[in-house]
C-alpha cells in the first residue's frame, strides 16, 4: 500500500471539515473491507485517509416507535445478530448475513456498504423495499434523502464535497408484511451477488391476494433499483393469477445488466426473472426469511 497522510477526526464536524478541505484527495475509512482492499491492489492511492474510528457515536442500532435507525458505522455483524431486528425486520439481518464472511462482517459497516455503492450492494435491495431514508451531514448542516435517490451510479452516491452519511432510518414494515432477500452467485459465501432480489409483500389474509408489493433488484443496473412496473403488476393479484412470462418480461424490461467477470448480461436477464418469480412465489406461499 502506498503511504498516505492519516487523519483521525474526533467529531463529525471535524470529519466534514477535513472532507471539505481535502476533497478528492481524501478517502474515508470505515471498516476498510472495501477501501483497504482496493488500496492494496493499487486501484486507489489516496493522498489522505480519514479514519472514522473515533466517531463511535455513529455505531448504534436503535429501536424507535416508528422503526429502526442505524448509525452509519454499525458493523454488519451487529445487524446479523440483533435479536430485535431479526424479529421485526428479518430481511435486513438476512441480507447482512450474505455479505462476505464473519471476519468481514465484524469490520464492515452499513454506511460503507451503501457509500461504496456497488450495484450489487447487498444491504441495498432490502433497504429499498422498506423505503429506507438516509441522513447526510455536511459543513452547512444536515439533510435527508431517500435511499433510492442516494444512489446515483456505480460507485457514486449523492454526497457533495464535505458531506458524510451518518444514519439510515428504516420504518417498520406494514403489519403482515413478508419480506426476503435472495442472492444468486456461484458460491454460498464470500461472493458478490450476480443478481440480488429483495421483495416485501403484504397479502390479504383470506384471499391471499397481494395488497402491496415492493421489489428491488441489485447487480442488474447501474444502481440497485426498485421495480415499480413489477410491483404494479403484482398488486391486486393472487399467486395463481400471476402470469410467469408476463412477470418475467416486466422484470427484464426494468433492468439493464452488463456483462462482466461474474456473468453475461443475458445470464443476468434470465436469472433476474427467475429469482424474482422465486421470491414472489416464496412470499405468497407463506415463507419469510
Amino acid at each position, binding site marked *: *500500500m*502506498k*503511504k*498516505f*497522510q*492519516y487523519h*483521525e477526526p474526533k467529531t463529525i464536524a471535524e470529519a466534514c471539515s477535513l472532507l471539505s478541505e481535502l476533497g478528492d484527495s481524501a478517502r474515508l*475509512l470505515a471498516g*476498510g*473491507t472495501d477501501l*483497504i*482492499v482496493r488500496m*492494496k*491492489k493499487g486501484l486507489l492511492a489516496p493522498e489522505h*485517509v480519514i*479514519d472514522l*474510528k473515533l466517531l463511535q457515536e455513529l455505531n448504534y442500532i436503535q429501536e424507535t416507535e416508528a422503526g429502526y435507525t442505524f448509525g452509519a458505522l454499525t458493523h454488519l*455483524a451487529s445487524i446479523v445478530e440483533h435479536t430485535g431486528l431479526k424479529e421485526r425486520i428479518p430481511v435486513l439481518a438476512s441480507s447482512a*448475513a450474505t455479505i*462476505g*464472511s*464473519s*471476519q*468481514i462482517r*465484524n*469490520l464492515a459497516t452499513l454506511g460503507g456498504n451503501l457509500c461504496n455503492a456497488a450495484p450489487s450492494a447487498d444491504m441495498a435491495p432490502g433497504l429499498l423495499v422498506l423505503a429506507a431514508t438516509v441522513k447526510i451531514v455536511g459543513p452547512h448542516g444536515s439533510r435527508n434523502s431517500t435511499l433510492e435517490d442516494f444512489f446515483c451510479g456505480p460507485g457514486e452516491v449523492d454526497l457533495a464535497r464535505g458531506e458524510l452519511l451518518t444514519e439510515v432510518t428504516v420504518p417498520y414494515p406494514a403489519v403482515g408484511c413478508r419480506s426476503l432477500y435472495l442472492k444468486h452467485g456461484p458460491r*454460498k*459465501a*464470500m461472493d458478490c451477488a450476480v443478481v440480488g432480489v429483495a421483495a416485501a409483500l403484504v397479502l390479504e389474509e383470506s384471499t391471499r391476494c397481494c395488497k402491496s408489493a415492493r421489489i428491488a433488484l441489485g447487480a442488474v443496473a447501474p444502481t440497485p433499483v426498485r421495480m415499480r412496473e413489477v410491483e404494479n403488476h403484482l398488486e391486486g393479484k393472487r399467486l395463481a393469477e400471476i402470469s410467469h412470462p408476463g412477470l418475467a418480461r416486466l422484470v427484464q424490461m426494468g433492468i439493464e445488466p452488463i456483462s462482466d467477470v461474474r456473468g453475461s448480461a443475458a445470464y443476468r436477464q434470465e436469472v433476474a426473472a427467475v429469482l424474482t418469480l422465486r421470491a414472489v412465489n416464496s412470499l405468497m406461499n407463506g415463507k419469510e426469511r
Partner: protein
Amino acid sequence: MKRKISFRLNDQPVSLEVEPHWTLLRIIRQELGLTGTKEGCGEGECGSCTVLLEGKAVNACLILAMNVVGKAVTTIEGIAKNGQLHPLQASFVELGAIQCGFCSPGMILSAKALLDRQPSPTEEQIRFEMAGNLCRCTGYAKIVEAIQAAAEVMRGDRDE
C-alpha cells in the same frame, strides 16, 4: 511519519511505533515477531490472517495498525494457557484437521470466536461461521469434526 500506538496483545500490553499504512498483520509478523498468523491473500478472502479483536474474528490484513489502539488482540500464540493447548488446538491435532497447517491458526481462532459465543453450534452454523477460512488440503470435514469435538470439551461434556 511514525506514530506510537499501544494495545493489548495476548493479554500483554504492547507499545510500538508504526507507519499509518502498516496493517495489523504486518506488525504482528514483522515488528512483533509472531509468525503464527499467516498472510495468504492479503485481501480478506482466505482467512489465514484471522486474529481476534476484542474476541471477534477479523482479517488482520485489512486492519491498519492504527486501528487497534487501546484494544485487545489475540493471535494463535495467545490461546494456550500455562503451557496447555486450547481444546481447539488439541482437537485439531488429535483428529487430523491439520495437513500443511497454513490455514490452521486462522481456522482455530475463527472457531474459538464461534464457540465462545455459541457453545453448541450445529454443523450448518459451524460451516457458516467458518466460511471466511479457506483450506486447500483437508476438504474441511476433519476441521468441522475437530470443532465439534472441541465444543464438547469446552461444554464440559467429557472429562478433560
